[in-house]
């Protein structure tokens, strides 16, 4: 559906495009999501490189071999980096929200998620609480649907 509109300076044709995609979960994402429902965070491990990955991968990018093991990640970890999103956008949580990439104990890569339980009225103070190096723990939602938002991070006091 397109209609031409006249504005003061020049004409515009407006169109909204709908493109639908079916994304296959693939070899590992399904198991990770199922693990979330069980209150677990599952990572994959490559015995050749010795690396343990979150989010889990089906193959190791370092060794270029298939990952050959599953590991339950610890439910605490360290913040590698963080930010407070002040200008967000549609379809996500209303800003301001805090995001952190956390390396959970027993893994070698950081996974991102929201940080809950922060007073975001003072950005500087909040950022100090989630500065690189601070430890956090995983908090699972009561109702889980097999989606990354089934858990979030909270600061360890």
């Amino acid at each position, binding site marked *: 559906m*397109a209609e031409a509109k006249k504005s003061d300076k020049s004409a515009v*044709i407006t*169109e909204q*495009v*709908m*493109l*639908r*995609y*079916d*994304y*296959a*979960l*693939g*070899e590992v*994402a399904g198991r990770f999501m199922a693990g979330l429902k069980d209150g677990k965070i599952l990572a994959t491990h490559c015995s050749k490189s010795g690396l343990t990955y979150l989010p889990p991968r*089906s*193959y190791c*990018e*370092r060794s*270029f071999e298939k990952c050959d093991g599953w590991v339950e990640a610890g439910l605490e970890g360290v913040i590698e980096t963080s930010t407070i999103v002040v200008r967000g956008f549609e379809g996500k949580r209303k800003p301001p929200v805090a995001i952190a990439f956390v390396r959970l104990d027993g893994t070698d890569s950081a996974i991102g998620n929201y940080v809950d339980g922060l007073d975001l009225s003072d950005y500087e103070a909040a950022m100090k609480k989630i500065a690189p190096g601070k430890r956090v723990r995983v908090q699972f939602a009561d109702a889980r649907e097999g989606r990354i938002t089934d858990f979030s991070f909270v600061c360890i006091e």
Partner: protein
Amino acid sequence: MSVYVLGVATHPASLSESRLRLEEMAYHTARAALDAAGVTRRQLDSLTLGACDELDGRPISSMLMSAPAGGYGTDEIKVTDSGASALCLAYARFLAGESQLGLVMSWCKSSKTDVETVMRLRGDPFYTRPLGIGAAIGDALFAQAIGEEFGVTENEATRRVVNAYARAARNPRGMAHPVPTAESVNAASFDALPLRSAQRAPLTDGAVALVLASDVFLNANPYCTPLAHVAGAGWASDSYRLDSARLRSMSSARTAWRTALQQAGLQSAADLDAVELESQTGYHEAAYVRAFGIEREEALSPSGGAFAQNPIFCTGLINAAEAVLQVAGQAGAVQRPNVRRAAAHGCHGYAQQGNVVIVFERAGGVQ
């Protein structure tokens, strides 16, 4: 500077590869090509990808795709025209001395989205989009134009489709679609006149990777045995317009063909023992056969082409893999006897706006 193909791999063809994410398909195929070539990812100094964001469902698809395809600490570049176009750029990179061992990869999950919607999105918003022009209409206009130019009848187009399915049925790398009868093809409903749905190659999911090596690399690694020598590559794109003159002239196809053969030192199709055409319909095959002067039926698309598998964005690069296998004597049940030289063709855009032709010859040289 000479360029060789050291290994090829194609992903198992399917109508819908729902078990695997696109990244996983790419990893398996890249890994298979490297293993077939007897080299590791670490040895690569270039990666050339051919992929389409709109078909992949991401605005910068190579962000998630380049590492699975072997791009880790590597010089990587992506072209968007077609899988076969990626091979052209890679070829230029090698001739420029910029790479000694490289991977060329392309993929397409036709089942992932409505391909025709994506094709329609390629229409300019003012003159083309409102008419819903996409692949079906583009191919129909092409069929009409070359029908008039060359006197191609519906019966010929249908005969070619049936024969292509018959060849494809023997291809161990293809879908083994059932071979239709001419009657059933002629009775199928129209998608857009004169094209009937059954005259168009069905879409599939797939991926393909080729490992290229320079003569410098081969001299330093004598345990590596090349499958084929890349003798020439030509590509060109036509006007975006869909008028009769543009469609009938097949100018970019002729330019690509002429350029590739010239580089390979060849005079005509008679010098080629196999030509893998990208014929999305029977009309396409009828047109290319005449434009390229392919007279020997036995040289024509031994693999079955798009009727064997058709992950549409990379069908041309799959043709390249098939041509390499022919020259190397490794094409299996569809192998033609004594293939010294084989050409691969790919097309892309509305009504084959763009064309690619690549000529391969036996690695040891051809008498």
